[in-house]
């Protein structure tokens, strides 16, 4: 009876201590008497009972984040910039990760900062603040990964993300003034272009007016000329038939037309003689 229950207890103990359940995304590292023997993939695995073997689970799918915070760095052209970095990394090799680094994350941060500092020391401040960020990220990632691999850390960098590159607070207003000056440059040019697009149509209008006036003048001139010449022609015809009569008629008509309109004074021997009142 006692032997039986002892046997059952032993079986239960073995079942519990010999089976390992590894979650998906994890890896199990099995130590046999302290030495790493093998790794277990996700799912059900087996190991010898304690104290012969034991296992440690390592999450190999989680993307971990390290944030060194804002760091002031010297650029290649001896300016200072504040860089805000985030490193995303994961465990690529669970065995190397187990035996590689005593302090994984602080070491990773030191390596990434060192690589970043080296690259920034070869870049100018203007490139860093504008187009150079992608280059910085890629080169820092490659350099840091190379160093991690050289030291067999089992870590893989997924991304070195430069969250922010800013001039230090002491000089930020000077940098802002440069961007507003760049804006001013555009504004000045734009307002000059606005002047052009207002001025030219105005002038074209003026020019058209000048030409139209000239055309009007020409039309009037031509109309008057042909009117006058037509009159002359018909009077000339009349004059050819009866010269004296036509001349007299014309003279009298004009005298009447003028006389009825203007103030006429008749004088004799320098004395005015009154015709009316």
């Amino acid at each position, binding site marked *: 009876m006692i032997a039986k229950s002892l046997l059952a207890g032993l079986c239960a103990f073995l079942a519990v201590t010999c089976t390992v359940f590894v979650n998906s995304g994890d890896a199990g590292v099995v130590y046999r008497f302290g030495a790493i023997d093998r790794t277990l993939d996700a799912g059900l695995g087996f190991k010898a009972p304690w104290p012969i073997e034991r296992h440690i689970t390592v999450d190999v799918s989680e993307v971990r984040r390290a944030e060194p915070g804002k760091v002031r760095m010297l650029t290649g052209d001896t300016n200072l910039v504040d860089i805000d970095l985030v490193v995303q990394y994961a465990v690529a090799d669970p065995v190397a990760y*187990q035996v590689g680094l005593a302090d994984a994350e602080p070491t990773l941060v030191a390596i990434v900062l060192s690589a970043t500092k080296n690259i920034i020391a070869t870049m100018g401040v203007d490139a860093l603040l504008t187009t150079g960020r992608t280059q910085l990220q890629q080169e820092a990632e490659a350099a840091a990964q190379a160093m991690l691999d050289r030291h067999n850390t089992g870590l893989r960098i997924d991304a070195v993300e430069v969250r922010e590159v800013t001039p230090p607070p002491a000089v930020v207003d000077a940098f802002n003034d440069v961007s507003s000056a760049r804006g001013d440059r555009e504004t000045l040019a734009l307002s000059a272009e606005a002047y052009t697009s207002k001025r030219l149509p105005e002038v074209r209008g003026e020019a058209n007016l*000048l030409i139209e006036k000239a055309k009007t003048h020409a039309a009037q001139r031509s109309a008057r000329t042909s009117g006058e010449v037509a009159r002359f022609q018909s009077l000339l015809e009349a004059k050819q038939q009866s010269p004296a009569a036509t001349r007299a008629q014309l003279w009298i008509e004009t005298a009447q*037309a003028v006389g009825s309109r203007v103030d006429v004074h008749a004088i004799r021997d320098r004395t005015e003689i009154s015709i009316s009142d």
Partner: protein
Amino acid sequence: MNRSLLTIISFLAAFSCIYTVDAREVAVVTFFGKPVDTVMEPGLKLRAPWPLHEVVRFDKRTQLLAVDPAEVLTRDKKNLVVETFVLWRVSDPERFLEAVGTPETAKIQLSDLVISRIAAALGGREFSDLMTDKGTKEPMLPADMLPGIAAIGSQRLGIEILDVQLRHIGLPLQNEQSIYERMRAERSRIAKAYRSEGEERAQSIRAEADRKAAEILAGADKEAMGIRARADGAAAKIYANAYNEDPDFYLFMRKLQTAETLLDKESVLVVDADGPLFDALTGGMK
């Protein structure tokens, strides 16, 4: 009774002779405090029971040593504040135990060693060699620095030094101020350049607009004058033709016409009472 006690004691003794060394550790076996064996490989090991043998274990993984910031001078006497880090691990546990003892002591000894070597290395370089915006440059630390430090580490401390790198290079606070001054001056120069560039562009755009405007007006003026001239010329020709048909009558008619046009309501016409206009009236019934 005696036998069972003996059995238990011998069991315990046998058990205390077995120990394991983890894959992340190295160990030194000491005999009354004196190192007698070094264990570099993990696994199941045997030893004499306590108190004869003792096992001292050390972490054999790569350790990070962050050296405190230190001020160094470049060859051209520029001050720099450098933060160095060292990757190291215990490579000779026996020597490590004797020379260092604990990782904390290792850090102090390593820090002093590394700082003096870094100061010497950077003291041999110009500041401009360390910083460049031309894209590529020499590594900041000379290649022969690490072997020198590593040799001392392994011979004296039982430590393998894997890497020595600068985590950060900065400037002392008072030097930062002068950098800021320069940065501000540089920015204000760039801002001025942008603004005067804008003014220059605006001026040339305006000048071009004015020139185009003047051209348009001049062109229109020329065209208008041409139109007028042609019209006047045509009129003059027509008048001349009319004149040629009968100059005397033409002049007579034009004179009358002119008189009629010139004299208006405000005009005063003074005429000889005996002139042709009134002679019929003033001359009596002749």
